[in-house]
């Protein structure tokens, strides 16, 4: 089985957000991946459609699906923080999320 930190999207996330492989963020992402049954690279690939050389279009319905799954994922204690780790993973890979503060 491939280590989480070997996925390209996880490398991108770690570099862009500036954290190392000991960080608790990775555990949250791993758990989320289990929930949706996909690898990190698959999640990002599903959200972005290539429209040109190095250019991507955000697939809004797919983004909404993952955002709703994050809402489900973060139920429970410390949930908001864990949910935000997953949001951070998506955001740093170019999947802009319409996050909210007042829910």
């Amino acid at each position: 089985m491939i280590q989480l930190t070997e996925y390209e999207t996880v490398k991108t996330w770690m570099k862009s957000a500036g954290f190392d492989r000991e960080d608790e963020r990775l555990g949250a992402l791993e758990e989320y991946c289990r929930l949706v049954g996909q690898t990190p690279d698959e999640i990002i690939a599903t959200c972005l459609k290539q429209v040109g050389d190095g250019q991507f279009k955000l697939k809004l319905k797919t983004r909404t699906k993952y955002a709703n799954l994050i809402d489900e994922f973060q139920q429970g204690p410390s949930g908001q923080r864990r949910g935000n780790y997953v949001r951070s993973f998506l955001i740093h890979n170019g999947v802009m999320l319409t996050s909210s503060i007042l829910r």
Partner: protein
Amino acid sequence: MEAAEFEPVGSQRSMDLFEAIGSRRSIRYFLPYRPVERWKVEMMFQAAHLSSRAVNASFIKAVAVERDSLDLETRERLKTPTNTADLDMAPMYIFTYADPTAPSVGPRRLKDLYDRGAFAPALGWSHKYIDDVIDATILQPLLKDEVESRWIASVEAAQAIAHMLLVARALGLGTCCKSFVDETAREVLNVPDHLKPIWMILVGYPAEHPSAGGQRPRPPLDQDYFWNDFETPFKATDEVTRELQRVRLLQPVAPYPWRQDEIRAIARAYGLPE
């Protein structure tokens, strides 16, 4: 939420025009619990109302909407794919629209300006010129041209918006121009059909330092401005640059050394992703 009562601007430290221009930023983090006073919105509107405008016509229409007057579902439906938590934080939205039919008042307004001495025969103006030439050959064709009339209405409305943003800054408020879902706004705000959407201006007290990390970088002046023709770049001078720094029109460019820590702290305080 209860807003503070009216306070004469003269009783506060006033901010001059140079500093208001120099320190205006697009603010993206607001104090969600601190309402914007109605009188401050009134001052923004009055400033907008005095902006330069062709034929002295009202090209802008704006409606101030308290965030909490909209239910959560409506606010979510206002968000475009690039809107995010800033809409939840800002306590006030100003929806701005351009009115392409505004020049229809042109002849009446122009004759009024003539009567008030803004125009005069010395510059070739007369009531007859306004009726026979300006209206017939400029205003009426303009009103029939959807693209041109929308273009001029947007340009003139944008001048009013610029006034609003600067007065907001002078009053200690933060603003940010955002796109919005037109259909949702039309549904809840009773927007007249002929108005064209421009920006939704978020208004509120900044949760970030008002400098928002520093002045945004701009290309050298001579890249965009010229003297006499477009082959002669307009060069900035040390003397003027120093004076504009003194009056705070020119300020240190972003990012301030602490900016990333500030963004992180705000994200944590509001439970937002980092």
